[in-house]
């Protein structure tokens, strides 16, 4: 999102025929909460942590504060292996907001033995024709994170993921 403040509602022009254009540019500030803060703090130290349900033992990466199956607080922290399985992926062919230049690949990654999956960009894939990318990956492939040199405690401390060696 743009960081520069703008009017929350503004009108750029009025179409004399039948359109009345306006845009919303609202500034929100989300409380990320203790669980997410801990996760991001650990990322800054190049560790991937998840929470575990004390009843069923399921591990969640990214962390979640509750196990949706047991409705129990998942308040135990565990470090997970820095390997993942690609559960699904998709290639985006259209420009969207501040995303990378298309085509780019977004993966649904099961990190370590997590019961849930995490989303991240999959990069370092060689191709000639963009359409090749659609069939370039397979569900079940092993992937690994590539850490950013400069880490600020957010999801992009992992710069991207790539197919594991």
């Amino acid at each position, binding site marked *: 999102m743009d960081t520069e403040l703008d009017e929350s509602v503004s009108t750029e022009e009025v179409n004399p*025929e*039948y*359109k009345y254009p*306006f845009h*919303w540019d609202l500034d929100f500030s*989300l409380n*990320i909460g203790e669980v*997410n803060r801990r996760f991001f703090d650990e990322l800054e130290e190049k560790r991937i942590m998840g929470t575990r349900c004390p009843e069923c033992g399921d591990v*969640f990466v*990214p962390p*979640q504060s509750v196990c*949706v199956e047991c409705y129990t607080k998942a308040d135990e922290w565990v470090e997970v292996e820095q390997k993942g399985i690609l*559960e*699904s*992926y*998709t*290639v*985006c*062919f*259209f420009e*969207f*907001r501040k*995303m990378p230049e298309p085509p780019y690949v*977004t993966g*649904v990654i099961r990190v370590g033995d997590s*019961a*849930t*999956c*995490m*989303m*991240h*960009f999959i990069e370092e894939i060689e191709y000639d024709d*963009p*359409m090749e990318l*659609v069939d370039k990956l*397979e*569900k079940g492939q092993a992937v690994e994170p590539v850490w950013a040199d400069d880490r600020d405690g*957010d*999801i*992009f401390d992992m710069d991207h993921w790539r197919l594991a060696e």
Partner: protein
Amino acid sequence: MTDVAVAGYATSGFAGETDKSGNELVLETNMAALENAGVTHEDLDTVMFTGQDPYDGAAISDGQKIATSAAYRKPIMRIQSGGGVAIHQARAKIRSGKADVVTVVAADFVTADPTTLSWSSHEALYHRPFGMNNRQSYGFFTQNYLDGSDVTREDLAATAAKNYEAAAENPTAHRREGYSTEAVLDSDPVVGPLTELMLGPMSYGAAVLVLVDEDVAAELDEVRGWVGGTGQATGKYKYRDMDDRLHQPTLRDAASTAYDEAGIAPDDVDAAEMATYAPSFELLGYEALDFCADGEGPSLVHDGTTAIDGPLPVNASGGPLATSPPNSGGVYRAIAACQQLEGELGRQNADRVLLWDNDMHLGEPARTDAVLIFEEASA
């Protein structure tokens, strides 16, 4: 408990643009629906709006339509999970004795980018940074489907073309060009295996449905149909087991409840309208609704079963690939179901039409599914 009838309905029809204001659309469509039902605004007990503020470009946007929907001084309610859920709730209100006459009102009239609106509805910390939106979620779902089965892009395209063939015969539909399988495959790639014509357009228009209890229905000359059973279920937001997502447990749960309530089996359904925002949802929907065994979804397209002239037409309206108004799509699909009971849409007279609606125009995670059974005769 009372049975609930569809006393009447109206739609403005749908297109890629409208020059009418939201209140103009609602007023014209609502008046037409009340007249079609043979009731007046004074008979009306409750109004249920269905839609989302972002699509209307205004917070509490239903409040601005109190006058045009004849909701002044009546208990109103907004449902954000789609027209199917709104009808499910309206029926519950009538069956509980809280109302005799209820309208379900929806309109789409503000031009905006639906993909960005969808992005804003996604989780902020882990999904939005990767541009997660409705189309991305359909891409994940479809890619996973193709990777784990023998289904091909050609199967997806044939399913889309089947919908477009039906839409070409529906004067209310938005896309009526009758695109072929080849045209669908040749359209621009958008996300994963999905092309532009495997995804719905942004459609504009309005739809209103009038529901009444059996006493009111008995006083009317005729009704359009009866709601024999309904079911609703909501899934998890977080991405977990992708295979579980393909199994569509919420759709199966909602369908099971609706079938039980209507006292019917899947074989008793003559036709269906489905909120399928990509062909993969339709093929897997056949399986979740027990129209075929798991893994056999594509065969219903290839053998013509679900074509407009087949024994089980699915999306005789053309479905969301042809007409996709995010606020009023579910109400419109209910109207399309009733029109098939009356022999006014499609090529057959159906006695029983299933409606599967959901809120997946915003994306697939945390979806809410609703299944409703519309019948020609009261149980």
